[in-house]
């Protein structure tokens, strides 16, 4: 009985596999891995949260075919990315490039973290000062001040 339970659980956890990419294999492993890498780097502009490797949209198929063709021609990853960006903009890249208009995006989380740490530091220090001057009983529970 328990064994059937395990089987059922495994069946429930399994995900159906769909072959979306119909491009034939590239002549060598290095090209193939570059193709796999690149098709996972580019966003499908039709279904925007999918990369072109995983998207069923016709546009994604066209772009896969284009990446395939260019890898076969021996164009570099950088050249192929440039090709995509010049047509579809930076949005086509899943990883945003590091440039002035994306600085906020790259540094934003760090800045917010520093701000948060700064606020926490000030609050804690203020509370400690209050505790030492106003509160004599060390066991008193600290209440938030606002």
């Amino acid at each position, binding site marked *: 009985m328990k064994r059937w339970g395990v089987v059922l659980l495994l069946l429930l956890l399994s995900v159906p596999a769909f072959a979306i990419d119909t491009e034939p294999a590239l002549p060598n492993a290095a090209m193939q891995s570059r193709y796999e890498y690149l098709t996972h780097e580019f966003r499908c502009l*039709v279904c*925007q949260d999918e990369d072109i490797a995983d998207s069923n949209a*016709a*546009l994604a198929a*066209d772009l896969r075919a*284009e990446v395939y063709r260019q890898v076969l021609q021996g164009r570099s990853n950088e050249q192929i990315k440039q090709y995509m960006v*010049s047509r*579809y*903009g930076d*949005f086509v890249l899943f990883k945003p490039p590091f440039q002035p208009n994306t600085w906020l995006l790259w540094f934003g989380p760090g800045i917010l973290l520093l701000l948060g740490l700064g606020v926490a530091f000030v609050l804690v220090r203020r509370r400690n000062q209050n505790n030492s001057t106003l509160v004599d009983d060390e066991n008193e529970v600290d209440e938030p001040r606002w």
Partner: protein
Amino acid sequence: MWRYFIPIALIVLLMAFFWRGLYLNPGVVDSPLIGKPVPAFSLPAVADGSPPLTSEDFKGHVSVLNVWATWCIPCREESATLVQFSKSKLVPVYGLLYKDQRQDAEQWLQEKGNPYQLDGFDPKGQVALNWGVYGVPETFVVDANGVIRKKYVGPLTDSIVKDSLIPLVNSLNQEKP
């Protein structure tokens, strides 16, 4: 008083961002081709015996390029608007038939009217790829120097034509090539 100011200011700022976000359309991606010259290309005409559509056709006057297909449902809505705009003869309207069949297209143009002075046939969508097309319909406005100035994603409506396309075309027509 001051300790409330900063949190409230932050909340107002966030709300402003969210409010703006409500009215953004994530389906519309700005084209990097705005301000760039028309990509070099040459396409055979949809109708046999008609002249081809090439990048040379965009030089010396303002022009409008409409990317369309008969399988595209929004193109149906757009068709009457486009025919009417074309009849105004403000600028030549070109078509790019995207991944479609010639016969279907000819039948469509007979039924609904043909807004296109020239209509290029792009059965595999390769030229469209160079224009950064990612869906149909899309409409480009090109100035007299052959530079792409504007891209409309999705069907043109009478109000878009009246409030945006016609004013844009008129102002581009004023520019010296």
